[in-house]
């Protein structure tokens, strides 16, 4: 026969295992704060259930109170009580310390990887025909100007890549150019890192402002070469009927 304390503890542990390990198999992992909230709600439920009557209250809280008060205890019970009574203030002290101690972590920087482009670049279409000659020319230009950082395999692993923070984009990753329109790439190549808005942290980017060195024609063809080489397609607006 199980007492209400054991049942409550099993319920809480089971809930924790479910939220922490089983749920992530079906959906995204929950943040620790949300898991804690659900556990607090579970505990509230147990407390409400346990305090419904005087007898249930006694069976839930009685053993705990007898344990804490320490009357008539000996052996393991006595040691366990002492441990709890010593650990609780230490836990409070540690919490106080860790919430007041100066952080060793540098300030977090939430850099937006794909910030909104300026209006004049929205919806521009590539004026060059997507044919073999243009794609090949784009790939040649890519090899000359882009591959040192973005890699000969379009994977962001060029010879110059390891030193940069943020790292050069990996075009073969479905999260980069496959999510973007050609006009977006045109903006990013033409204006470079210094063209980013504040949320893109332009001061850290090593991406050159290519408009200073390359004509627009080269940039549009590089975009074609980039998509073809990385085996991705630009994102397009859905055709409206």
């Amino acid at each position, binding site marked *: 026969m199980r007492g209400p304390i054991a049942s409550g503890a099993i319920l809480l542990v089971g809930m924790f295992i479910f939220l922490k390990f089983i749920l992530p198999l079906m959906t995204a992992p929950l*943040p*620790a*704060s949300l*898991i*804690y909230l659900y556990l*607090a709600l579970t*505990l509230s439920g147990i*407390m409400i259930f346990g*305090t419904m009557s*005087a007898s249930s*209250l006694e069976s*839930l*809280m009685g053993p*705990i*109170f*007898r344990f*804490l*008060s*320490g009357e008539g205890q000996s052996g393991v019970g006595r040691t366990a009580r002492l441990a709890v009574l010593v650990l*609780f*203030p*230490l*836990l*409070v*002290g540690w*919490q*106080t*310390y*860790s919430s*007041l*101690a*100066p952080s060793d*972590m*540098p*300030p977090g920087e939430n850099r937006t990887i794909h910030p909104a482009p*300026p209006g004049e670049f929205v919806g521009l279409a590539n004026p060059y025909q997507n044919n073999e000659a243009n794609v090949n020319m784009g790939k040649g230009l890519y090899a000359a100007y882009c591959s*040192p*950082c973005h890699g000969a395999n379009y994977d962001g692993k060029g*010879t*110059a890549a*390891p*030193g*940069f*923070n*943020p*790292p050069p984009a990996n075009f073969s990753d479905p999260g980069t150019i496959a999510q973007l329109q050609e006009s977006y790439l045109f903006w990013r190549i033409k*204006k470079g890192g*210094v*063209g*980013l*808005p*504040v949320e893109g*942290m*332009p*001061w*850290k*980017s*090593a*991406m*050159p402002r290519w408009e200073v060195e390359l004509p627009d024609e080269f940039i549009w063809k590089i975009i074609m070469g980039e998509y073809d080489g990385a085996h991705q397609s630009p994102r397009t607006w859905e055709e409206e009927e």
Partner: protein
Amino acid sequence: MLNRLRFLSTITFVGVFGILGHSIGLASDPPPADEVGASVSARIYQVEGTLPVDDPNSSQWASVSESEFKLAPQVHWPERIQEVTVKSVKVKGLHNGQDLAILVEYEDPTEDPQDAAAIEFMVGDKKAHFAHGQEMLQVEGGPVNIWYWKKENGKALDMSAKGFKTLTAQEKQDVKATGVWEGGSWKVVFSRALRTEDEKDVQIEPGEWRNIAFAFWDGAVVDGLVKEKGSQKAVSSWWSIRAEPTADNSIFGWVILGLALAAGFEFVVIRKLRKGQSA
């Protein structure tokens, strides 16, 4: 009796569970992993007394931990370079409340007169682009302060820039540097007062984070030409650096207060329980 029990059970559980939950929250949300597998920040540790500003091999340096930053060839603007000698730099820092010293150590197989090293800081509150504070199109940028050392004259230059072709030596020279080459690597110590009167200088305030970037030139002569010079160099973009603050002992006062409150809470709870049981 029932009311007292209710009261006690509620405060005990809310207290214990609150603290436990807070610990879980703190322990299981790790800081974001760094992106490139190297350091993201360097520390300037506080020590007592004089700093080893003239001695890159001083035993004082051995006592502090280092950060390591990877470097890339400068490909951001012309003249570019595709391949550089210096691939990464190890950084250590010391300060004594008045002055600071930063040691950079990097591999360079040959000692050449044109070998050079530089560290760069943002100056003031405005963000500056790591490439000499060059103009940004949507963000108003600030200036940078560059501490430059060259083997040839063995001296440091305290410089400022805000955009390309604006790099100039400052009127007030506040930086010192000493370099020693040994067995294929350079150790260069840059030193300065934490704070200066010069508004063109970075001001290092213990406890506050600053942005730092690095550049190195291999001055070896290959086929009659200096291998790396001017914009052809190994670079990093911005990382973080902080002079450690003086230990704040008031924290321990709060910790003791926390301990005392928790112990007092236990005492009150147990007293009430014992009274309740004997009643």
